[in-house]
């Protein structure tokens, strides 16, 4: 474990807490570069690179999946009226079941992502925070 997070200068940047005390000081976002944590060092660190790759792979895959699934459903509703109107039981049609399947998949993706982020992202982010703090 090498030292990855250095410091450029003495800091006046507030720690990432919900405290509102620093809220009124500067009106702009993202202009604290020179006196803040060393973002370049964090960006270069293997921990960050791995975290970014893991995050992008996961969310891009899930996004592609749900967009594809939603678009297929919309196209079916737009062009495959016969198929969507097929009755399964009583008045319950394929269209209605697929519609509720969109609800179910939304809940499923939300649950999966929230659980994954809690286990795979939050601890890694917390470690990067500790280093950024320790580097001060």
């Amino acid at each position, binding site marked *: 474990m090498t030292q990855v997070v250095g410091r450029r200068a003495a800091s006046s940047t507030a720690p990432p807490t919900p405290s509102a005390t620093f809220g009124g000081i500067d009106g702009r976002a993202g202009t604290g570069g020179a006196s803040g944590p060393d973002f370049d060092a964090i960006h270069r660190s293997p921990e960050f690179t791995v975290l970014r790759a893991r995050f992008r792979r996961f969310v891009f895959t899930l996004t592609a999946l749900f967009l594809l699934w939603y678009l297929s459903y919309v196209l079916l*509703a737009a062009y495959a009226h016969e198929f969507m109107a097929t009755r399964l039981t009583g008045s319950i049609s394929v269209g209605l079941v697929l519609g509720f399947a*969109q609800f179910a998949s939304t809940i499923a993706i939300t649950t999966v992502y929230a659980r994954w982020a809690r286990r795979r992202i939050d601890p890694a982010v917390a470690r990067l925070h500790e280093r950024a703090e320790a580097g001060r």
Partner: protein
Amino acid sequence: MSVLAQGQVGDPVLNSVVFGAFVVITLFVVYRVGSRGSSTTDYYAAGGGLTGVQNGVALSGDFLSAASFLGVAGAIAIHGYDGFMYSIGYLVAWLVNLLLIAELVRNTGRFTMGDVLAFRMRQRPVRAAAATSTLVISLFYMLAQMAGAGAVVALLLDVHTKGGQALVISVVGLIMVFYVLVGGMKGTTWVQIIKAVVLLLCVVLMTVFLLGKFGFSLTALMEQAAANNTKGEKILDPGVQYGATPISTLDFISLSVALILGAAGLPHVLMRFYTVPDARQARISVVWTVGMMTVFYGATLIIGYGASALVGSERILAATGRENAAAPLLAFEIGGTVLMGIVAAVAFATILAVVAGLTITASASFAHDVYANILRRGKADPISEVRVARITALVIGILAILGGILANGQNVAFLVALAFAFAASANLSTLLYSLFWKRFNTTGTLWAMYGGLGSCLVLVFFSPVLSGAPTSILSGVDFHLFPLSNPGIISIPISFIAGYLGTILSRDKADPAKAREMEVRALTGIGR
């Protein structure tokens, strides 16, 4: 003429009492929790101190506009399955927020969408573009809400003269401005929370009652709905509203795409992510919103079909407010004047709360992006910035009142879908590019925003929404060139392509150090 005009349905006095109770309770809460602090963080972001759950419920409150509640239930009651497509689009849209937007936006910005977009770009032009888009979207969205207010007033208070409705709209607008000025973001948030909880309870109770009435058989409910709808069995399947011609089918696809991509670009939704302390709480917010949305939009199907089954499509279309009257009429059918009063008051409260959320967003964008960062070049002191925000809120409130009075009774329901198309075209592309594409630069941002916004405006101007169709706003003239009512399917790709071309064709280079800093901040929240 209409059932309501004959005064057989609902009791204006009772309705007023229920609505009055809502106003008194929320005013009390706003007064108690309202931040008297004058810092920008207090006013714009509730001090960043809301919990994920509170913010999630408030997000539902912000998102469930009158269009969602009255509009979707009415669309299902009249058009059946095609109306249900709105429910699905509005719900699935939250996955874009959950996966790509909420946490990253929370970590990179402080108060407005402009914070994220201008992070590594030239501040002034990008903030000007972000503010323009925020103001345009918020005003369109607000006008749609306020225009519906007149119809709800007629329904709720039995006020049928234009003058009387104008008076009520003014009073409502003033209450809304008061929420924003006294409560800031924190007060507005609590209005949203109270409204969202009452709305959801109301909707769930109606759904359970309806299901019980039909022996918990969806088939029985749907058969009755089809029997009492002039379109019969067809309402149970797709195609009633949009299936007539190839063009209307394409319009339907365009609308569906705009719905799921638009939610993540709505400025008043984005701004809510700044009210929580960290990215994890932003994620929890969206998880809660998804939960509440699932229940709500699932219930709209039952309520919509229930309204068709128990009230019937002919009576709904004959009532004041037409489609929008489906839910209140159904409430009267199952719970008498008391439930009707509650539902109508909740609908009214919904308009009030959503307009308050839009007002604080628009005023924040003007004060923070235009005043503090463009005019004062980031050197404005927070006290004067908040003062500018409050004055802007007052001006926007007055504009909303005037707009509501002028647009009263106009066919402006398309404005909400249009606001979604604007948000998807101008904001989503730029947000995604700046979060995920290192080379994206100032020129790309400007091309994507103005390209998306501009193509949307032009396409709508030459669409059947404005002229050339029986439902157009302008009758008697026909200058329509573009066949679709919703421009999303064209303008969203235009915005993405313009952003790409602007970036690779321009000579200005992205700032690589800033891009690295933004990546680190977005993912970890370090430095905020």
